[in-house]
């Protein structure tokens, strides 16, 4: 099985190396190399999953990496179990589809080969993250996916916005990583290992005080929040849409941003010990979901809507994890990966044909782009949690879990957010595909087959995955199997609310029964608040400008003027002392003689003093 893992991991790496050093000149070969590697990986990961399925359990491989201390081995390794094998499949699948799609989307792009090499590197890093058997390795690949995200957001580096967005993404996630790093170090120091299974064992023996456990859990969550764009570290994700759209689908919707959730799942044994930490996760997840969902309603950029939607859904996953919904959270991660990738790729298809991101410059595209429209619709319905799509199963599981755990306020908010979700997706769909044409002089056309085939495949998955939910919950669980309750009321209610929201959107944006402008007028304050994304970006800008830059400029000033000033001052003091002494040298013989005779007297006194 580990040979297969090696195949999974090394194929993309080999592709990266090949493309970077050898085939960079030829675009065709580069993309081919990358895709073949990914296909092999996908096959291997399917095999691994089959093997795991036949005998569920933890399979571990350890390779020593750095030997310094006997009691703190630093290793690399592989940990295969249901959790990681499922994730492997998801990553490989989405990555492969995105790569195929990109052949069309990135056609004629200047950095085509570079794009494929980075995507291979990303796949490698993400897979490495997934199979990591210890925290350090996870952290390493965690940073590497961050790097790839940076590189790919900055794919069009000559656009200032893209360059800024890339930097912002890296720096903001780094804030979270800082917490994760401390957590890794803290755990290593306290437990003497980085290994997940061993940490679980050691922590289980109660070596850490409850406060320490909470602290570690929160620090880990800090990292997860950065990567998974949870409030207040979510600000980078909307900006990250400056990158190519397939990248948004792969990294910023399906895989990398879910890594935070995956991290929490991997270290759930720590969170499980701390009720405080879980509550914090639940609250942050829920508020992120609500906040992002509400912002998405007023966005004009199709990718921004999807980005906020992603943030919102990631909030759902965190909420699920916070309310002991281990299985539900993970399942939502997987379904979300498919339908959100689908939505992004669909959006990409639209953008590809119209060269704009603004939904108000689109309209009635259903006519020209049937496949895109239908698959987009499926994705939207899945996202809205409408039966029988996969989103329905996963989202309702979260809602049920929240209610069962007794967090009524959180449930109410999450429920409301579900309504938002349906509304903004419907809004986008109506405005883009059904309402009247708002572009002129352009001739939208359906994208080529390399682009729409992945759409169709993903759409199938988005619909079909839901039916595996029961099998999934039997395979992946924490502690005991969480038998899904076949509650009827909540799914019914949520579906009704979703449909209600869709109808509302239909009324506003399709039929224009209710004037959107009037609504804006009416709720001007709310609208402005949402439009400005809760002013969080402004708050950050304010902080950075008034705190960070001020402090750093102060440090720079302090260094130049105080520390260095002291140095120059010492120099000045020496020179002026020399200047003063020099005045004694008058050139008059008799003054010199005073020196001589005065010197004798001084010596005499000094001698008597010392005696």
């Amino acid at each position, binding site marked *: 099985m580990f040979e297969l893992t090696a195949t999974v991991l090394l194929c993309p790496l080999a592709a990266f190396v090949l493309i970077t050093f050898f085939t960079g000149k030829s675009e065709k070969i580069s993309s081919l190399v990358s895709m073949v590697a990914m296909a092999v990986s996908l096959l291997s990961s399917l095999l691994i999953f089959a093997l795991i399925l036949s005998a569920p359990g933890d399979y571990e491989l350890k390779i020593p990496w750095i030997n310094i201390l006997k009691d703190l081995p630093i290793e690399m390794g592989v940990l295969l179990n249901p959790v990681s094998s499922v994730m492997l499949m998801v990553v490989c699948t989405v990555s492969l589809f995105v790569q195929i799609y990109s052949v069309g989307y990135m056609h004629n792009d200047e950095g085509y080969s570079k794009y494929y090499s980075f995507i291979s590197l990303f796949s490698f890093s993400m897979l490495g993250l997934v199979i990591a058997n210890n925290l350090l390795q996870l952290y390493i690949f965690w940073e590497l996916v961050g790097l790839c995200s940076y590189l790919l957001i900055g794919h069009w580096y000559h656009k200032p916005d893209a360059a800024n967005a890339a930097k912002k993404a890296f720096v903001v996630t780094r804030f979270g990583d800082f917490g994760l790093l401390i957590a890794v170090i803290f755990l290593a120091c306290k437990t003497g290992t980085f290994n997940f299974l061993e940490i679980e064992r050691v922590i289980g023996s109660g070596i850490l005080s409850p406060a320490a456990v909470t602290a570690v859990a929160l620090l880990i969550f800090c990292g997860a929040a950065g990567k998974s764009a949870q409030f207040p570290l979510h600000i980078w994700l909307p900006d990250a849409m400056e990158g190519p759209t397939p990248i948004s689908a792969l990294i910023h919707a399906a895989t990398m941003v879910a890594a935070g959730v995956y991290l929490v799942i991997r270290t759930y044994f720590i969170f499980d010990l701390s009720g405080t930490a879980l509550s914090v996760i639940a609250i942050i997840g829920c508020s992120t979901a609500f906040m992002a969902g509400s912002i998405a309603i007023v966005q004009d950029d199709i990718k921004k809507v999807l980005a906020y939607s992603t943030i919102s859904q990631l909030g759902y996953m965190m909420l699920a994890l916070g309310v002991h919904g281990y299985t539900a959270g993970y399942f939502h991660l997987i379904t979300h990966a498919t339908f959100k990738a689908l939505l992004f790729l669909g959006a990409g298809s639209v953008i590809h044909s119209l060269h704009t991101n603004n939904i108000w410059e689109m309209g009635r595209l259903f006519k020209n782009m049937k496949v895109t429209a239908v698959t987009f619709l499926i994705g939207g319905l899945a996202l809205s949690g409408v039966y029988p799509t996969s989103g329905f199963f996963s989202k309702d599981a979260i809602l049920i879990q929240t209610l069962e755990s007794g967090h009524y306020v959180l449930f109410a908010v999450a429920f409301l957010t579900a309504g938002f979700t349906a509304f903004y997706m419907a809004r986008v769909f109506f405005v883009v595909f059904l309402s009247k044409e708002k572009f002129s002089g352009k001739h939208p056309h359906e994208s080529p087959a390399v682009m729409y085939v992945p759409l169709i495949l993903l759409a199938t998955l988005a619909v079909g995955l839901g039916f595996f939910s029961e099998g999934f919950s039997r395979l992946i669980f924490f502690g005991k199997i969480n038998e899904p309750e076949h509650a009827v009321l909540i799914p019914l209610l949520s579906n009704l609310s979703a449909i209600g929201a869709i109808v509302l959107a239909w009324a506003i944006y399709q039929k224009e029964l209710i004037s959107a402008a009037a609504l804006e007028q009416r709720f001007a304050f709310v609208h402005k608040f949402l439009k400005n994304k809760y002013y969080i970006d402004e708050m950050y800008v304010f902080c950075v400008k008034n705190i960070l830059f001020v402090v750093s400029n102060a440090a720079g000033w302090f260094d130049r003027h105080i520390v260095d000033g002291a140095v120059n001052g010492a120099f000045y003091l*020496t*020179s002026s*002392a*020399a*200047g003063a*002494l*020099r005045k*004694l*040298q008058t*050139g008059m*013989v008799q*003054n*010199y*003689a005073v*020196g*001589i*005779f*005065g*010197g*004798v007297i*001084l*010596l*005499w006194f*000094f*001698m008597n003093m*010392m*005696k």
Partner: protein
Amino acid sequence: MIDFSLLKIELLLCGLIAILFILDLLFTNKKPLHIVAIAGTFITFAAALFFRDTGTTFVGSFISDDLSIFFKILFLLNAFLVILLSGDFLKKNPLYTGEYFILLLSATLGMVLMASSSELITFYISLELMSISSYILSAYQKSNPRSGEAGLKYLLLGAMASGMLLFGISLLYGAAGTLHYAEIAGVISAHAASPILYLAVVIILAAMSFKIAVVPFHMWVPDVYEGAPTPVVAFFSVGTKIAGFAVLMRLFMTAFVGLKAEWGILMAAISAITIIAGNLLAIPQTNIKRFLGYSSIAQAGYVLIGLAMATVAGLSATMFYLVAYLFSNLAGFAVIIIVSGKIEGDKIDDYKGLWKRSPILAVCLLISFMSLGGVPPLVGFFGKLYLFTSAVENGYVWLVAIGVLMSVVSIYYYLIVLKRVYIDPPLDTSPIRASIWENTALGICVAGTLIFGILPILFFDSVVSSVQTFLK
């Protein structure tokens, strides 16, 4: 009985002086004088290296031991190097060539005798022989008002110091009843020291401090160095100083050895002040000779550290450092003599771009200054190292701290000069060439700085053993 075999070097020098005197009278062409002087000094120098008879004569007022021979070698080497370097100067000031050599050698004779004197009259006479010759040499360029002023200043202050010295010696005579060092030591160890004796010691120390130029008795140095002819300055910047130390060493380590504790602390204090003031004052200088004057003041401060310790290690360190000082300082002066012979100026700014004009001179100046600043692996560093080790050994950590800190300052001002030499563009790009004699002298100095730096072992052991026998 007078044992003339101990006086070979002195007699040779006298003979040389006489020969020069006669030649000067006989011939109008002064050129051969230079050659004769060079050859004669070299022969004497070689003789000093070769003849190593030890003993006392003149009823104990003249002593020849390892210590005195060591110093004599230094004096003769100094004289030899300076005479090598004087050619260009004498070509420009040819009026009194004979007198120049005669005075130079009689000053050397004074020094040589100082190193050997073990009685105060002998010491005084030889001191004055050296001093008066130096006064005249300083004022050698009669028509140059600066030279005259330098001579007069030197003379007036020197005479005052001499008067003071005499007064101190007279008090000492009153207190001890003898003028022989060894007997004075006996008296001091037999009786409790009286205040009058202390006063004598202080006055004599002050008077000798004038000769070795330490603060606050140093003030004549910059003016005299600036005004006097450069070869002459080179001569007494090394010779007078070493002679002063030779006398201090013998006088204080034999006659006043019983009062070691008292004068030790005095010397330590003087050396501390000297190191600080000398180094600081060198910073704002614009005249290279004046600059080197202050630098030599600071160097004297360092040397005094070893003497203040009054131990085998301290004295050997002092002697080693004097050698280091001789080579390094003369190397610097050699460069200055060569350069000032060509560009007619003593301003530090005149050295701008020397690197371009003569790389060899620039490198020599670098080596010389870095050695004076105490940078390894040059001989000056080892000198300082030995001095500091001896001081730490005796618990004078504060003194070492001052010394080390101020040597950083000294690097600063040496670098100020070297900056002009290496970094600034030259005002005039004509190359500077030196005569064969000058190159020889420069080569010897630089070689000494380098070789004794890399292999201090070459003579360090002999220094230590000579100090050991001296202290026995």
